């Protein structure tokens, strides 16, 4: 049985791989496997998996590749994930893929999807128009129809059907993955010293680089290890991370936050891959079940408007549930949805008397010294208040 450090090491290696490399890795045991890119925040990975493909998270390229092609096509004030995701396609790092799916999260994603489409001939690039209204009488039918459209077009591209039965089976598999992730996150909420934020991030993200069948035992193993390991408690300001729902912070930043005196108890990283608050019932029509889960069982995020469950309440609840003392906002630089929500979140936290700090990030961050100083000052001001 691998130890926690072993698992974390494997995961850290995996999340450093570019899409084709991740697929090559998976092909070691499944030689003919093809991939399908999933741009954040959410996509119905079950449909992709049921089509016999490996859903692979497209989170840009960290700072692993030079933006030799994409920089010329984008303005400078665009989030890094958009630039480097395009570069992945232009630079030929997504060739073993049947295609990729994007969704209507922001204006950047729309443009990115269309650019990718133009530059990925032969691949199936789709854009999901997820509902922005969760409570209209037609919301369920609309969402199901949109998922079905994706299924049908993917099947047409592949030249083979993607059956309900297969989707239902994938649903059960992903239920198990998400259930374990929820359990691990629960455990971390109770015992923030038991898992470093950077490690949990790596483990959660590794799931976007593996087939769920292979990921499940690794995750179960990790959970067992973490649960059974006694840890020494550390001092620190207990915080919740908010704002990293799409582009993911560099792992060095997460390490800096904790080294600077914070203990991360909850976060919204990789949220689209663990969106649902409970298992989805896979017995009936699986697409209807997925649609319903999206409408009713989703965690709040800044790209999903839920009139009856405001995001400010979602964050307040997350802070309460975690027993956190403060919030660290970590929006990606130039991320419009995160920056817009920052205003709302900030005023809510001010009202509730919850301290907060904003730390923006981008892919090409080489040093964290100034962040470290900021976080230390913030943490000290709280610890020695």
């Amino acid at each position, binding site marked *: 049985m691998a130890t926690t450090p072993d698992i974390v090491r494997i995961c850290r290696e995996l999340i450093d791989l570019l899409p084709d490399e991740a697929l090559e890795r998976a092909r070691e045991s499944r030689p003919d496997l093809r991939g399908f890119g999933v741009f954040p925040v959410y996509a119905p990975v079950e449909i992709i998996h049921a089509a016999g493909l490996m859903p692979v998270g497209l989170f840009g390229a960290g700072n692993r590749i030079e933006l030799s092609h994409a920089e010329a*096509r*984008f*303005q400078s*004030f*665009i989030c890094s994930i958009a630039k480097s995701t395009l570069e992945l396609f232009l630079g030929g790092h997504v060739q073993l893929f049947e295609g990729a799916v994007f969704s*209507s999260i*922001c*204006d*950047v994603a*729309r*443009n*990115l*999807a*269309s*650019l990718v489409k133009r530059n990925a001939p032969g691949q199936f690039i789709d*854009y999901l*128009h*997820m*509902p*922005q*209204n969760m*409570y*209209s*009488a*037609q*919301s369920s039918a*609309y969402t199901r*129809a*949109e998922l079905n459209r994706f299924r049908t077009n993917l099947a047409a591209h592949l030249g083979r059907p993607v059956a309900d039965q297969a989707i239902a089976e994938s649903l059960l598999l992903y239920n198990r993955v998400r259930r374990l992730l929820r359990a691990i996150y629960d455990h971390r909420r109770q015992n923030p010293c038991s898992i470093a934020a950077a490690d949990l991030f790596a483990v959660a993200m590794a799931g976007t680089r593996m087939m769920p069948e292979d990921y499940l035992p690794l995750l179960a193993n990790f959970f067992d290890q973490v649960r059974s390991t006694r840890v020494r408690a550390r001092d620190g300001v207990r915080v919740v991370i908010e704002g990293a729902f799409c582009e993911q912070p560099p792992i060095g930043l997460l390490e800096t936050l904790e080294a600077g005196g914070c203990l991360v108890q909850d976060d919204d990283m990789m949220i689209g891959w663990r969106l649902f608050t409970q298992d989805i019932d896979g017995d009936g029509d699986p697409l209807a079940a997925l649609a319903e889960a999206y409408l009713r069982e989703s965690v709040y995020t800044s790209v999903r*408007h839920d*009139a009856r469950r405001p995001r400010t309440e979602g964050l307040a609840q997350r802070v309460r549930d975690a027993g956190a003392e403060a919030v660290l906002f970590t929006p990606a630089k*130039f991320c*419009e*949805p995160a*920056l*817009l929500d*920052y*205003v*709302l979140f*900030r*005023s809510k936290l001010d009202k509730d008397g919850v301290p907060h700090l904003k730390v923006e990030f981008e892919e090409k961050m080489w040093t964290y010294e100034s962040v470290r100083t900021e976080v230390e000052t913030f943490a000290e001001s709280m610890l020695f208040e």
Partner: protein
Amino acid sequence: MSSIVSTVVNRIEIQAQQKLKELLRACFVNLDEAARAPERRVAWCTSVGPCEILTALGFDVYFPENHGALLGARKLSQHLIPRAVGVGYCAESCSYMTSDIGATLAHASPLREVYGIDGPPKPDVLVYSTNQCREVQDWMSWYGRRDGAPVLGVCPPAHLGEVTRAHIEFVRGQLRHLIEELERRFGLRMDDRRLEEVVDRSSRASALWRQVLDTAQARPSPLTFFDGVIHMAPVILMRGSTAAIDYYVTLLAELEARVRDGVAAVPDERFRVYWEGMPIWPKLRELSTKFFDLATVVAASTYCNSWAFEEYDGGDPLLWMAKTSTEIFINRDEDTKEAFLEEMFRRFSIDGVIFHNARTCPNNTNSRFGMPQRIRERLGLPALVIDGDLSDARFFSAAQTLTNIEAFVEQLEEQAR
């Protein structure tokens, strides 16, 4: 520079402009009265939002984006935006929103000086459609919290290629729901006949507005984009009223007469360019003068066309509303946008395209992801990208931009040789 034509040539003003001023004053004074009268109700609505429903239910409708534009045009935005930044807004978020919120925080509104009213009318309800962007949702919600007024919205599927029956039905359902909410909260009852009438008037104003814009197909063009952004006020602010229809009947007659008489908006018109993106409100005059001096007419724009909807021919008014508001340019994918632009270039015999890269409105900016390059390559049309902003003048460099425009027109000259 050889391309500069003497500025002694004067512009011939559009006569209807006087009438427009009176109309706008009446509109704002009426809104102010409505806000003060206990028995009347004011609804705030986004510019391509479901205002016909509000009008049909008896609300007086106010459009906050217009205030954002006014703040920009009066060069006030850059002084007010820091107030919004102070409460957490990002200085690069929609400057209509941040300058409007800044104005409210600073208790400053040009409406006082322009129309003699205290400022924006206090809302009883705020209604948005995210067909243009999600920023409007945030913007309206800020006022909703401040004034304790309900915020209701319609959220069409975004960024569509083909608009299908399913999309429209989904939006139609949301409009129905909106009506029910308004009825329930305010004890009202929708009169379906009245809604049909309002939609019919709205569509007629819009159709006339399109005809107005289409007069610019003539060579020389009787109006420019810079006229358009002024004269489009009624089709936004008074949509659904007979006043808007009457106004456009008058304006259209005047422009048609100009076409007949060969009256040019830009005398000795040499080139015809297209404006893609938001206006740069604080710099309209400088830009307009520059193009005038260069004998170049900005003959058409996406922006002014945003309110030129297809006609309503009876039937279910909600279906028309759902369709027109979902199909708008800003809510479409890149291919659809490019096809639309191509058609516009053809209809207006365009020689070159200006893309305004509005720093704080990515939603209405199409130059960030290579569209100008594609248009250059595919259509062989010269394209210039201007960095600026709709309201925040700090993002605009006059010297650099005006020089770039001169160079661009030189390029058009080269091409014409």
